[in-house]
């Protein structure tokens, strides 16, 4: 689209979508912070991480953002000694998810901030379009 203001709306929308998906991933992590496996020695919930990439929209000459992947990076799980737990292995150790709630909470605040900023960009563009159209109003 050759209208930069329309392009701005599209860019902002892509930002909103990206940040929404990021928030969902964070929420999943937080909800599953204590989700262990069901059977002895089973893997617990693995933290998910979302990755973005920018994409140049040729027509609009603007950078939109896309979600590239939602991955589970390889890290070692925490281990706690809890014999009698359904997921305890032969020695009574249970592997717990590698989710740090503090980190997730901070990430969530960041994602909210980014979401609001994208919203603001969309509002600004919408205002500019409205201001232009208002020039044609006679009253």
């Amino acid at each position, binding site marked *: *689209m*050759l*209208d*930069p*203001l*329309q392009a701005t709306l599209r860019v902002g929308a892509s930002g909103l979508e990206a940040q929404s998906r990021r928030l969902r991933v964070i929420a999943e992590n937080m909800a599953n912070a204590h989700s262990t496996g069901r059977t002895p020695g089973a893997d617990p919930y693995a933290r998910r991480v979302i990755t973005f990439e920018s994409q140049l929209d040729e027509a609009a000459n603007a950078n939109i953002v896309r979600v590239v992947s939602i991955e589970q990076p390889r890290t070692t799980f925490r281990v706690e000694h809890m014999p009698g737990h359904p997921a305890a292995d032969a020695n009574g150790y249970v592997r717990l998810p590698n989710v740090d709630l503090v980190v997730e909470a901070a990430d969530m605040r960041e994602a909210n901030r980014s979401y609001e900023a994208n919203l603001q960009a969309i509002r600004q563009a919408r205002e500019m*379009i409205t201001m*232009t*159209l208002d*020039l*044609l109003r006679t009253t």
Partner: protein
Amino acid sequence: MIDPITPSATAVRSPATAGGVDLTTVRTGLVAGSAETGVDFSTMLTQLSSRAAGVVRNAESVSIAGIQGTATVQQVVEAVMAAEHTLQGAIAIRDKVVAAYLELSRMQI
């Protein structure tokens, strides 16, 4: 663009402006005195009306392009605004010309 609101009639003599018709200049040119104008009055009026029609036609095509999405909002608004004030000026001049003609026709010979 010609400098507007110049009482000099030379402004009327150079109709090739960069943009639309500058009718304030034309009007003051008429008022200042037609004795100096190098352009024939009727020719000038014809040029005026054809240019006004052109500006309106351009506004129409840009508006259609805007609806189709091939023109930006800004382009549409600018074309329409230019048509508005060009047409307004042309109509004002036309009214004056018609009034003047009626005055003439009422003159006792």
